[in-house]
Every structure is written in structure tokens, then in C-alpha cells.
């Protein structure tokens, strides 16, 4: 009986005008477009400089800032009000004010009359921009003062040189960080929505009744609905890994078995949830909206975009019920750090618990008899 039901699901999947194409196109777009487009690195910060000093020193500082590649110099002016107007009109993001006597004080070492003003309407851009800018100024001061500062520092005590060393992602490349997360998102979207819409589709067409009046067991029905999505998802994950390797040269540091094991567990959760929702909805719209609701919350609260550890206490507690938290964490650990399955056993345990619950609930709530 199982054989025939699985056969049916596969035939229907491949005959659907949309689904096979989505499965091919979706991972490609996820892997090739998002790492470039949805990027947390801040570049192209528009800068205006108010230079009241007009010495070699000040123009050297300006050059230092612009050659970093993060800033785009819009204008050098001498009227601070003009610079402020430019910021008000949103043509610049940051103002660097170089006070009079900058060149002189650089020589005497009296501290530098430099001001930084940043537009923080876009919080991320603002705060990162001001950091970059002050880094530039600091570096300039250090290189300038050179021996003077070193001797002065020697007199005032020890110089603490805190140079962080980055592990696992040495260049702090946002793309490396996002690739496993994008796989997580692609898998969640496909396995969450497809099974839900599938069952609701059978409800709408009335074909589900023909099965309900037959001796098909509930478990057979649900599991046979899930198996095709397992196969499809493996294909999709394989494709994502291949694209990551071809396009970015990223390879999974840990074992692929680990990736696939966690994917199996995660599908159990999302497909179980999808089936569960479809049991309680009468039409595709309902199922879509409810699924959308959950998937959005899962994603935003999963640590995929923002770290779980920086969430407030109450939010962190909620994330323990979020399957995506475990899957994203495991995928990143395996992909970036090369963790073994034993290293991330708690993620497996979390997924297994939530998945078991969702699937059992889906099977028990599916009623052949109303």
C-alpha cells in the first residue's frame, strides 16, 4: 500500500507545473543573490569633511579616510552649517570636522581637535560608520605620532596592544556566515509550505475523502506525504552545497553526514508542522497564512540574522521552542567550524523533541472520521 501512495506523491509532484521549478530555482536564487544583496557589511558611506585647518596634515587625514574604501567623499567645505544641511537632506551619512590647529597639535601631541558626527537614521550604517571613521582617525594618529607617541606611552605606562584574532571566519566575511543560514531558510520554506499545501489541496479537491473511506492508515498517509519532500530536500541541500563551492569556494568543514542528519531531523519538524497546520485548515489561504506566521517568527528568533545571545532573557527562553534555532546552530557549527555530530548533540536533541511532538500531533489530529 505504501509503495502505491509514494508513487502517487512523486508523480503528482513532478507533474505540478510549478513545484519542480521552484525546487530548482529557489536554492539558486538563495545562494547566488542573497549573499551579495542582503549583506551586513557597510560600504559607500557618504562623507563630508569640514576642514578648518587646511594643512598638509589635514589633507593627509582625509586621504587616509577615503582610501579605506568604505567612504565616498562628497565634499570638502569649511562651513559646518553647510555640512549639516547636507546631512539633513540625506546626501551625506557622516561629517568629519577637522578643527583649526590640527596640524600643529599633531606635532606637539596635545590631542587632536577632530569631530565626528553621524546620521543614525539607519542605525546599523550609522554605528558601524562612526566606528570605521574613528578607526581611521586613530590609525592616522598612531602612524603620525609614531616615535613621539611610543616614547610618551613608554613614560605613561604600558601600551596594551589588543589585536583580536578571528577564528573560523578569519576575514569576517559575511557571506561565509550566511551560506549555512541560507540553506536553513531554503529547507524551511520548501518543507514547511509544500506538505501543508499538498494536504489542503486534497481537501479542496475532495480527493482526500476517497482516501478516508479506504482502509489507508493515518500513519501511512502522513509518512507517504513526507517521504517525497525528504528526497527533494536532499537534492536541494546538495545543490546549495555545490553552488557554495562553485561560486564562493566554500566547502563544508565538517562531515556531510552531519549536514544530512540534521536536515532529516529538521524536515521532520517542518513537515510535521506543515501537516499539522493543514489538518486544522480548510483551505490553502488559511494554511498559507498560519504557516507564514510561524516561519517568520522562527526565522527572526532563530539566530539566523541576529545572535540569540544578544536577545533579552524572555526572548532567549522562547528560542528554545524554535526548531530553527537548533538547526541553524548545528549547520553553522558543522559548516564553519567542522563540528562533529557529538559536538552539537544538544541541537539534535532539540530537533528530535520538537519533531517527535509535531509529527505525533499531526498523525493523531488527522481524522479519517469526523
Amino acid at each position, binding site marked *: 500500500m505504501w509503495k502505491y501512495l509514494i*508513487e*502517487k506523491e512523486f*508523480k*503528482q509532484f513532478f507533474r*505540478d507545473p510549478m513545484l519542480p521549478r521552484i525546487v530548482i530555482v529557489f536554492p539558486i536564487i538563495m545562494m547566488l543573490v542573497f549573499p551579495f544583496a542582503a549583506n551586513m557589511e557597510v560600504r559607500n558611506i557618504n562623507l563630508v569633511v569640514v576642514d578648518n585647518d587646511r594643512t598638509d596634515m589635514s589633507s593627509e587625514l582625509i586621504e587616509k579616510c577615503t582610501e579605506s574604501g568604505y567612504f565616498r567623499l562628497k565634499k570638502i567645505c569649511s562651513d559646518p552649517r553647510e555640512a549639516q544641511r547636507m546631512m539633513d537632506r540625506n546626501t551625506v551619512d557622516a561629517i568629519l570636522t577637522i578643527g583649526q590647529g590640527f596640524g600643529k597639535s599633531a606635532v606637539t601631541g596635545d590631542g587632536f581637535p577632530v569631530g565626528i558626527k553621524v546620521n543614525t537614521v539607519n542605525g546599523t550604517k550609522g554605528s558601524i560608520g562612526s566606528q570605521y571613521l574613528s578607526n581611521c582617525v586613530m590609525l592616522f594618529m598612531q602612524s603620525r605620532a609614531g616615535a613621539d607617541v611610543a616614547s610618551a606611552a613608554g613614560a605613561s605606562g604600558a601600551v596594551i596592544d589588543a589585536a583580536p584574532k578571528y577564528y573560523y571566519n578569519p576575514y569576517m566575511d559575511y557571506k561565509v556566515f550566511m551560506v549555512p543560514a541560507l540553506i536553513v531558510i531554503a529547507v524551511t520554506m520548501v518543507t514547511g509550505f509544500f506538505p501543508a499545501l499538498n494536504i489542503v489541496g486534497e481537501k479542496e479537491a475532495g480527493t482526500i475523502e476517497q482516501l478516508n*473511506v479506504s*482502509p489507508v492508515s493515518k500513519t501511512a498517509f502522513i509518512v507517504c506525504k513526507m517521504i517525497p519532500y525528504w528526497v527533494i530536500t536532499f537534492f536541494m541541500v546538495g545543490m546549495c552545497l555545490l553552488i557554495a563551492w562553485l561560486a564562493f569556494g566554500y566547502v563544508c568543514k565538517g562531515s556531510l553526514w552531519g549536514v544530512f542528519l540534521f536536515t532529516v531531523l529538521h524536515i521532520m519538524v517542518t513537515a510535521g508542522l506543515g501537516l499539522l497546520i493543514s489538518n486544522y485548515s480548510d483551505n490553502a489561504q488559511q494554511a498559507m497564512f498560519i504557516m507564514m506566521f510561524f516561519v517568520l517568527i522562527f526565522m527572526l528568533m532563530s539566530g539566523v540574522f541576529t545572535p540569540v545571545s544578544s536577545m533579552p532573557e524572555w526572548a532567549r527562553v522562547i528560542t528554545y521552542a524554535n526548531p530553527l534555532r537548533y538547526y541553524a546552530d548545528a549547520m553553522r557549527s558543522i559548516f564553519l567550524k567542522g563540528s562533529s555530530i557529538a559536538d552539537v548533540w544538544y541541537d539534535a536533541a532539540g530537533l528530535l523533541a520538537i519533531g517527535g511532538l509535531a509529527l505525533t500531533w499531526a498523525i493523531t489530529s488527522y481524522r479519517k472520521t469526523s
Partner: protein
Amino acid sequence: MENAIEIHGLTKKFGNFTAVDNISFTVRTGEIFGFLGANGAGKTTAMRILCGLSIPTAGGGTVAGFDIVREPEKIKKHIGYMSQKFSLYPDLKVWENIRLFGGIYGLSGKEISDKTAAILSRLGMEDVRDAFVASLPLGWKQKLSFSIAMIHDPRIVFLDEPTGGVDPETRRRFWELIYEATSGGVTVFVTTHYMDEAEYCDRVSVMVDGRIEALDSPDALKRRYGVNDMDAVFRVLAGRAVREE
């Protein structure tokens, strides 16, 4: 021989609404039993209970010898069901639908291919074996649907308005299939609102507002109400309805 269906005091309520109101009847093995009633009289609800798709609020009975409340899954092995909403898979081909339902009812691969050949030749549909069911005319779909409902040789077959929306000639041919089936001993339980079809039945019941108002052979009913055809019988009885559609 025992009765195919025995029902007593069957009631189904949805909230305050009583869809089926304390009905009792028996269907003899091998007969064609017509289950008539206006739209909204409760026919489909009652039929869904008999098929194990719905649990009654009160009352009970047996279908094919199994209890409708306690053993619905056992009933499902021995009945065929054709719903008024056409329910084969439109995106599967004709032979694939036959194969799927054959497989679901536990037929072996060999039985399935034998059945497929037999069904296609009986319906004269060998040429459309590889056509998608969605592309077939309604009359063909209904005949195919009926044959698939019979694929596991059930003891009872339930037909819920099987001939809705097709012309009289197609309907007549459909009934030939039903007669062929009963000659093999199967019990047919059929709902319809075509009164010419009611004449084909061995016995009919007429449901009004969730209750069975009359149950007898078509001839006996016509005599009782002093009219010439089932149409008139139906109008007399259905005229008593209080409930709106």
C-alpha cells in the same frame, strides 16, 4: 441471509442543527436501495456515517456486519464509495488511478493489471488508458469512478448522486453498470434526485427534514399516494418539508 445494512435511531447534530433525526432502516443484501430526499434533507450526512466518515451523535447499527461506531476502519475494507464531488486524481492517468486504488485496497500487482484490463475493456476506455483523468468527459469520469469504487469487490457500494450533471442517455448507461454489479451480488446504496432513477431501485426511502418519511418499493409508494410516477410521490412528501435548503 443477514441484512447488508441495519440502522436504528441514527442521529447526527451539528450544534443546534439536527441534520439526521432518529432514522432507522435496513437494506437487504443484494438490493438496490434508493436514498431520496431534497437538497439539505440529510442524505449525504447519513451516508457519510454509514461509510465511517462521520460519527453519529446517537444511535448506531451495522454495515457489512461491522458496527458503525466502533469498527469504522473494518467497514472501510468492505465498502466502495463514490462521492458526489468527483474524487479521482485529475493529474494521474486513467491506469494510474486504477493502480493507486487497487494498491490502497491491498490488491497484488497481478490482480491490479488484470483489473485494469477488465475495467478498461468493460468501459470501452482502452484508448484513453494513458489520458489524464482531468481530460475525460464527465460521464466517463463517473463510470471510471464507479468501476474504481468496485475494484476490491466490496460487499456494499455507496453512490452519492453518481450521475449529477450528465444527460439522460449517459445516466441510463451508468445504470446498466449498476445492474451488472448487482448481478454479481453487491448491495447498492444510492442517493439521487432524479426520479426516473428512483424507478430503477428495488426499494426507496424518502428523507424529509432529516427523517425518513416513507420507505417501500417504488410501485408500493405510487399506490399508497395514488399517483402515477415517483416524481409525484416525491413532490407529495418533499412538500411537507419545513426546513429551508
